[in-house]
């Protein structure tokens, strides 16, 4: 039997494998994005960038706990003016590798989202991720736009208008009562894809110190503990809308990636796995996916997308 085909497409963008570097994880510079592309990612997402430079939160910004990671980096980024150059540079590095580049943006108002999107669109990333769901900047920006379907749709429209032909994916938050409703709203407002999910708000307390571990007190949970939450969200979204989903949250192994796709994801975000599996995470996960597909006699990874809902 031939090796199973693991190409997938998100709209017109073709990925030679379904694994997408998740935003904010390692990919903060053109050289780091290039590194991850060389390490076997099907696509890479840049760190989210906003209207102005942000240094982010003081340390500690991250810690491992028994069942996952938690971070409150605080959207450290150089601001869109500088980011435009970085995306351009990254694009030049990735083009010869044929690795699609997804830019990621955030902002504090609907209008600012449009402005950041317009600025980024000039350097033509393959896709723009609209991060309306970072849990770590509530003190600066208030509730994430992902909290409500109306505001989520407003941001989507504003970005969509600003970016012309460039497809957009909207990144949703897990801490909502009805993620399917929000997905529907952003798709109606023009989203070409959905990235689900961002981290889940959480807190670690160190009992000996009688203190939250993170300087920001709360942070976003990623890694293994997030996986079933992500699967639930992806399943809800897959049943609510037709657009491709970049299923993200707690994928460490090929089996995890397969589960995400069975829940309805077309591509699979990979972030924390770079800690748990090391620098070869992408190649390891890919090899495990192929082994699973071979064992179960699938000819292409496309056959499993949404399969958990079909049986």
């Amino acid at each position: 039997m031939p090796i199973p085909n693991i190409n997938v497409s998100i709209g017109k963008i073709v990925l030679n494998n379904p694994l997408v570097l998740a935003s904010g994880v390692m990919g903060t510079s053109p050289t780091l994005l290039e590194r991850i592309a060389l390490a076997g990612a099907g696509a890479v997402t840049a760190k989210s960038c906003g209207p102005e430079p942000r240094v982010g939160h003081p340390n500690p910004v991250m810690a491992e706990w028994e069942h996952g990671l938690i971070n409150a980096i605080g959207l450290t980024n150089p601001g869109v003016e500088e980011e435009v150059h970085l995306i351009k540079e990254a694009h030049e590095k990735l083009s010869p590798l044929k690795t699609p580049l997804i830019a990621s943006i955030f902002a504090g108002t609907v209008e600012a989202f449009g402005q950041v999107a317009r600025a980024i669109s000039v350097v033509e990333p393959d896709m723009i991720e609209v991060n309306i769901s970072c849990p770590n900047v509530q003190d600066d920006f208030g509730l994430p736009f992902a909290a409500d379907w109306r505001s989520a749709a407003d941001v989507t429209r504003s970005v969509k208008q600003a970016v012309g032909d460039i497809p957009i994916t909207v990144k949703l938050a897990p801490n909502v009562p009805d993620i399917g409703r929000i997905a529907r709203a952003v798709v109606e407002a023009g989203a070409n894809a959905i990235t689900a999910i961002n981290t889940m708000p959480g807190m670690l307390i160190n009992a000996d110190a009688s203190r939250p571990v993170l300087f920001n007190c709360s942070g976003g949970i990623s890694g293994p503990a997030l996986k079933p939450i992500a699967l639930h969200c992806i399943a809800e979204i897959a049943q609510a809308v037709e657009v491709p989903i970049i299923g993200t949250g707690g994928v460490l192994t090929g089996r995890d990636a397969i589960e995400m796709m069975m829940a309805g994801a077309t591509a699979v975000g990979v972030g924390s796995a770079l800690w748990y599996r090391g620098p070869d995470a992408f190649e390891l996960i890919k090899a495990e996916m192929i082994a699973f597909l071979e064992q179960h006699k699938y000819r292409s990874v496309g056959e499993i997308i949404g399969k958990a809902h079909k049986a």
Partner: protein
Amino acid sequence: MRGGFEIRQVQKLFWVNQTTCWLSLEGSIDAQPGQFVMIWLPGIGEKPFSIASIDPFCLLVVGVGPFSRALLKLSVGDFIWVKGPLGHGFSVDGQRLLLVGGGYGSAPLIPLAKAAKAQNLQVLVCLGAQNSDSILLPEAFENLGFQVSVTTDDGSRGQKGLVTSIVEQALQESDFDTLFACGPVGMLTALAKICCEHQLDYQFSWEAHMRCGLGLCGSCEVPQTFDPSLPVGWLACYDGPVFCKRW
């Protein structure tokens, strides 16, 4: 769970000079020479420190700013929180080792020297600093029976000038299999050039601004402009802090 914080009690404090303290913590740490830890002081902050001794677990702290000075205010019996060991350390390659330290760069070289001693290897140590006082722990190497050459910026001890000059001399005088170094970026960049010229294998422990310490936030990238031999997108906390170059 190397990425979580564990509490450790301070067991001994030994002042090396006016601004530098050797901090001995309870227990040992399961680490390789050259690995580092993140130290968290609740309410104050969190910063990376080299493991200056593995058993007992010790740190060498130079008071230069708010966090390091807070560490130096600790008393025996106080607690600190440790995340680690993190990163990748030195691997003891070759028979004749040249160890080069600048400032607190001595710290990770001490457990390396101990490991070399255990393997009966030949070791020469070159240490550089601003002045006589700030040469850190030459006796730690001397006590292992290794020769230590020193330079200071002001000539107050050893040769006057940069540590690179005695390294050049040493390379002229004898053959070495590997050069191990830790210190300021400028020193490492200069040493990388020297090693390149001599086609000498090297292992440098790089420093960089660390935030997550886990390889995810991207803050500690060391660019190829510092050393063209570094791979693209090299992260000090994740791929390093030690970078190994074999020609």
